[in-house]
């Protein structure tokens, strides 16, 4: 049908430029899309970003290494723990320090809980984008339980400042592990409910299957990472490819898109990879709780973070993909340069490529399936 609409001989058409955003509920934040359309068919999209720009990288040049953590919190506000963890790993690589086992396990438990929370928002809002309201309220309800756990852990629900270079701010509070197990027991059946309600819903499949197909080689060329790339069947997960922390100790799978409902790499695949990843995260948390050793979490916290002169590029698999921190140190307690590679920044850049030839209403579905967070794109 698209070809017929694009065929100029059928009807006289002309290009029209439509603005979507910056204040539009479907753009997941303050993102402006300049959409070039021919009738209802999209020919090109220019994402205009920077509305949330607060010059994070310039701030870093005036702050000591420890003071940067609250700033990394605010980059990806749906997965703050991941950003802190990514930054801390990079600084620890620069400092060349060994962490106590207990810290590594606590970090893994927290990171995987955060991944569940972040994916719950991603799948919920994706449903909301294509018109399914109920799943959103359900996923937010379940995410609330994770936020309650985090509140018990460090007092904050959104911006934690919990994972620090060299360790974590507190040890686990009493009953935290029991509450986490309780949550997992509760959560596993919820995924089945979500599958019944949304994943296999006829209307949802019609809206998302075959829409916005991302071929694997295009995805890699654009630097797309995380669940968005794995939806195209590329087995690329830093937890497996370049294991950091204690991830080699756990047995888990990397879910890949298979094109079950349509073509490989369509919006439905990207969505479903996230659903499957939540199960894998739950699996990792259970194993980590079983293996959790005793110890002092503050043992390796440096009195003053003052790395030797040099550079480091630290990588981390966050809920949205491959986070990179490029840090240049000149031997002082303030970094010379901090550059953050934001996964959603690269994921968004592929939007124009995969949206070509689709209707405007499909753009909403494609954008939702990429799961962007503007705080991290604009930095």
């Amino acid at each position, binding site marked *: 049908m698209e070809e017929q609409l694009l065929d100029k001989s059928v009807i006289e058409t002309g290009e029209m430029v439509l603005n979507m955003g910056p204040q539009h509920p479907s753009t997941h934040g303050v993102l402006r899309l300049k959409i070039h359309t021919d009738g209802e068919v999209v020919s090109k999209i220019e994402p205009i970003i*920077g509305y949330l*720009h607060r010059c994070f990288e310039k701030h870093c040049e005036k702050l000591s290494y420890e003071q940067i953590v609250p700033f990394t919190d605010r980059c990806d506000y749906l997965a703050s723990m991941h950003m802190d963890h990514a930054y801390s790993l990079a600084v620890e690589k620069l400092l060349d320090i060994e962490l106590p086992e207990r810290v590594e396990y606590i970090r893994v438990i927290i990171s995987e809980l955060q991944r569940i929370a972040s994916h719950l928002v991603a799948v919920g809002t994706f449903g909301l984008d294509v018109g399914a309201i109920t799943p959103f309220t359900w996923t937010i309800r379940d995410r609330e339980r994770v936020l309650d756990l985090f509140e018990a852990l460090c007092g904050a629900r959104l911006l934690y400042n919990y994972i620090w270079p060299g360790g974590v701010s507190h040890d686990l509070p009493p009953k935290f592990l029991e509450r986490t197990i309780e949550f997992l027991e509760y959560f596993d059946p919820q995924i089945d409910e979500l599958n019944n309600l949304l994943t296999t819903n006829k209307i949802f499949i019609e809206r998302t299957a075959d829409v916005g197909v991302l071929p694997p080689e295009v995805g890699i*060329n654009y630097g797309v990472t995380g669940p968005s790339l794995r939806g195209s069947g590329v087995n690329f997960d830093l937890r497996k490819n370049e294991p950091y922390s204690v991830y080699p100790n756990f047995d888990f799978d990397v879910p890949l898109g298979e094109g079950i409902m349509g073509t490989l790499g369509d919006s439905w695949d990207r969505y479903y990879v996230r659903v499957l990843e939540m199960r894998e995260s739950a699996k990792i948390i259970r194993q980590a709780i079983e293996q959790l050793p005793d110890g002092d979490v503050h043992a390796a916290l440096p009195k003053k973070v003052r790395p030797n002169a*040099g550079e480091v*590029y630290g990588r981390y698999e966050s809920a949205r993909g491959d986070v990179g921190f490029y840090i240049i140190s000149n031997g002082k307690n303030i970094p*010379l340069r901090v550059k953050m590679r934001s996964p959603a920044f690269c994921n968004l*850049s592929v939007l124009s490529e995969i949206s070509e030839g689709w209707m405007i209403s499909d753009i909403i579905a494609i954008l939702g399936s990429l799961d962007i967070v503007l705080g991290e794109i604009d930095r």
Partner: protein
Amino acid sequence: MTFSEITDHIESKTSGKISLIEGKDVIQVTPDNWLEVATLLKDDTSLQFDYLMCISSYDKGNNKTYGAAYNFFSVQLNHYIEVRVEVEDGTSIPSVAGLWRAADWHEREAYDMMGLHFENHPDLKRILLSEDWEGYPLRKKYTEPDYYHGMPVPKDKSYWD
């Protein structure tokens, strides 16, 4: 492949086009040779760096030398390399957006923030800041303007004293 294997391989294909930095696992390339080396990195069957992770611009601090650090990864072969290209202010670096589409936005960001110019970039314009912003904020000598479109840029910190 390890770092030394990669550099030996590049050296055997293009003699004298790359240099190494002492004590670091980093390749340095001059802007003139960069496009040739980049093409080799991407297309050579035993290198296959198909994934450009990040382009980080940096300021050497002497008010004239600026650099870009490229971090590559090969999803196929699971190896990693960092390449640096350094230029004097006013000289441009060849764009690699034709090889890796990921470079498009990253180069725009390096231009926007550090003022690096990329030759033959498809659409080199500011990405995070507004089009009419003056100066390049991440340069060390950058001073913020007093006014932007008539609005004062707050610098008065007396409130906190």
